């Protein structure tokens, strides 16, 4: 009787016991460090032999990043704002206000309004950052570089990945081999991708050196030109991650019931109409989810810039993660945590906004 009572108790609580290890692991290795990291961000920490000493400095770490001596590093340099920058900033502000007005007019709820307000402020801040640095001919910092990797990189990956997936979703000879080939880059370690693309880009000994000589760029060192370096990192990143978008969207395209497209064909739709009217709406929820995953991962980019350019020339290709890593390497833990928290803040707001306004909006509409 005793044993059966124990086993019955186990049966009743097994669900919790199943969930518990995951929760405990996440609490210990994710939530606790997250809290600790915030504490460190408000402190100056000195590593001493075997231990460390802590001194609280309040918002000093963040102040240094946003307004102090490290401003150029994280945000960029600010001198006079140019006319184009001003124009763009004003236009973006007006557009964003208009978006808020539209929302408030259509349907208003406190939670929805507050959520959109956060999105609004973040977008406003990023828009003015963009106009004050890049559009005004100033340098931009690691935050701008990271956003460049995220938006330009993910945009390219999305377009090419989707196009390739759609092309491969048709039945014709050779599709299977194309699928296998297109999947390959995903299996190559990012460090490897970095080195491979360094070889590719070598203007004197790389495979395309002939081409470079011919167009007169034989002596051009791409790693010393900020934009060339950034673009090369995006190309390498895309080479690696287009397969991910490709394979997910291919699955989605193949799950579109043939009845739908066939019915549309009988109703007289041409190829383009079939795609926009039937296939794409069906695939859109998956596409939105896939892009959300991609954007989340893209914010973490660190290995490619570190391998390909070590963040150079200057800080031109440094991502926020890399900046934080460099700060850690110079044993400035407070700065490292503060920078990481800025990244976390931006990532969470952008990803949650994307999730709420794009992914969930589709789900809500569908149900």
């Amino acid at each position, binding site marked *: 009787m005793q044993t*059966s009572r124990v086993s*019955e108790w186990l*049966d*009743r609580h097994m669900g919790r016991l199943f969930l518990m290890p995951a929760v405990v692991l996440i609490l210990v290795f994710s939530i606790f460090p997250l809290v600790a990291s915030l504490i460190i961000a408000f402190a100056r920490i000195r590593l001493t032999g075997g231990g460390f000493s802590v001194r609280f400095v309040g918002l000093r770490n963040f102040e240094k990043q946003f307004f102090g001596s490290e401003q150029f590093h994280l945000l960029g340099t600010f001198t006079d704002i140019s006319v184009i920058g001003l124009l763009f900033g004003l236009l973006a502000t007006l557009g964003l206000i208009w978006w808020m007005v539209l929302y408030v007019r259509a349907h208003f709820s406190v939670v929805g309004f507050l959520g959109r307000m956060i999105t609004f402020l973040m977008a406003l801040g990023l828009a003015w950052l963009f106009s004050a640095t890049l559009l005004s001919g100033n340098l931009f910092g690691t935050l701008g570089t990271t956003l460049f990797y995220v938006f330009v990189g993910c945009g390219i990956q999305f377009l090419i990945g989707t196009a390739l997936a759609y092309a491969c979703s048709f039945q014709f000879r050779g599709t299977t081999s194309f699928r296998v080939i297109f999947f390959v880059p995903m299996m190559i370690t990012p460090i490897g991708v970095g080195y491979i693309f360094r070889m590719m880009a070598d203007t004197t000994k790389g495979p395309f050196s002939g081409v470079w000589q011919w167009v007169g760029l034989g002596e051009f060192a791409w790693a010393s030109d900020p934009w060339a370096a950034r673009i090369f990192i995006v190309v390498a990143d895309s080479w690696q991650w287009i397969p991910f978008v490709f394979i997910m969207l291919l699955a989605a395209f193949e799950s579109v019931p043939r009845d739908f497209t066939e019915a549309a064909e009988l109703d007289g739709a041409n190829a383009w109409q079939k795609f926009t009217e039937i296939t794409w709406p069906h695939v859109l929820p998956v596409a939105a989810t896939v892009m959300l995953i991609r954007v989340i991962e893209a914010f973490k980019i660190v290995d490619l810039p570190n391998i390909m350019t070590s963040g150079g020339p200057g800080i031109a290709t440094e991502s926020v993660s890399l900046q934080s890593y460099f700060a850690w390497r110079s044993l400035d833990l407070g700065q490292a945590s503060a920078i990481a928290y800025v990244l976390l803040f931006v990532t969470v707001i952008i990803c949650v906004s994307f999730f709420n306004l794009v992914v969930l909006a589709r789900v809500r509409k569908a149900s």
Partner: protein
Amino acid sequence: MKNKDKGTAKSISIRSMNKFFQAVHVLKDLSLEVQAGEFLVLLGPSGCGKSTALRLIAGLESISSGELFIGETNVTNVLPKYRDIAMVFQSYALYPHKTVAENIGFPLKMAKTPKADIDTAVLAAAQQVELGDYLERFPGQLSGGQRQRVALARAIIRRPSVFLMDEPLSNLDAKLRGNMRAELKYMQSKLGVTMIYVTHDQIEAMTLAHRVAVLKDGTLQQLGTPKEVYSNPANLFVAGFMGSPPMNFISGAIDNESFTTKGVKLPLPGAPKSNQVTLGFRPEDCRIVKAGSGAMDAEVYTAELTGDQVLVTLQLHGSQIVSRMPKEFEIGDTQIAGIEVDARHLYLFDSESGLRITADSTR
């Protein structure tokens, strides 16, 4: 030897059982006493709570209030595995990655029975359902009827005291269903187990059950032998649910001990005066006659020959009346026909509450 086949059947006692899903009251105060070795059918349309009742008995859902006894034991809060119950699901719930033998032997394996004992038991159970040759196959390679037998064998191998079945025949085609029905009935009586069987098919209920419990919207409507439920329905719902084609209903009023509605006047000696009543009679208790010579006249709608009989549908004040006539009957091009009803088989219901009104003439 014969006795070894018989499990120790147990009675089931359901006492004011209720079930809520959030705010939805799906089972309302159900009380039932099922005798040991009885074949009880829970009958009702989809959404009536019959499957929920079964899942509560099995322990797959928690009981919101009330008590449940199996034998002498209160099992209200006992986990399903300790209830000694076997259940056959509508989908059969066969494990697709296990062979027929592994499927059948699964309950014994879970009880940590020695391997050799499992093998002999599996063979015996498989032979009982005539599956001896299929032991190494996978469920995906079997036909619907064979899968049904595997599920059955898996249920009987444990010799449980109670058997639950959730629409086990609804995935089979009509012919196979007839065969399996007979087999189920034979097996239940041979094993002598208590069986609770859920179905929406009143023919299954009629043919299989010792007693039928008719449910609607989570409430028990009537409990009785198939014959009682068919020939003595407690209310409008039961009357309309049992029988195929169902009972005919005409609404009207009782005045001066006779049923009246537009163009109809039917004497019903002893019936109490009432404004809103429904008169019911079964298709086999009425005949088509010449217009004017029956109890009422109605417009002929269709006549369908089903083989052994002709079903004539007529329209009276917007409602349809079906009469079952012998197969020789020909309706011709008659537009209006009379309906003669058997006065001994008339049923009278209160239109509002649906309850049966008894009068001398309607038993």
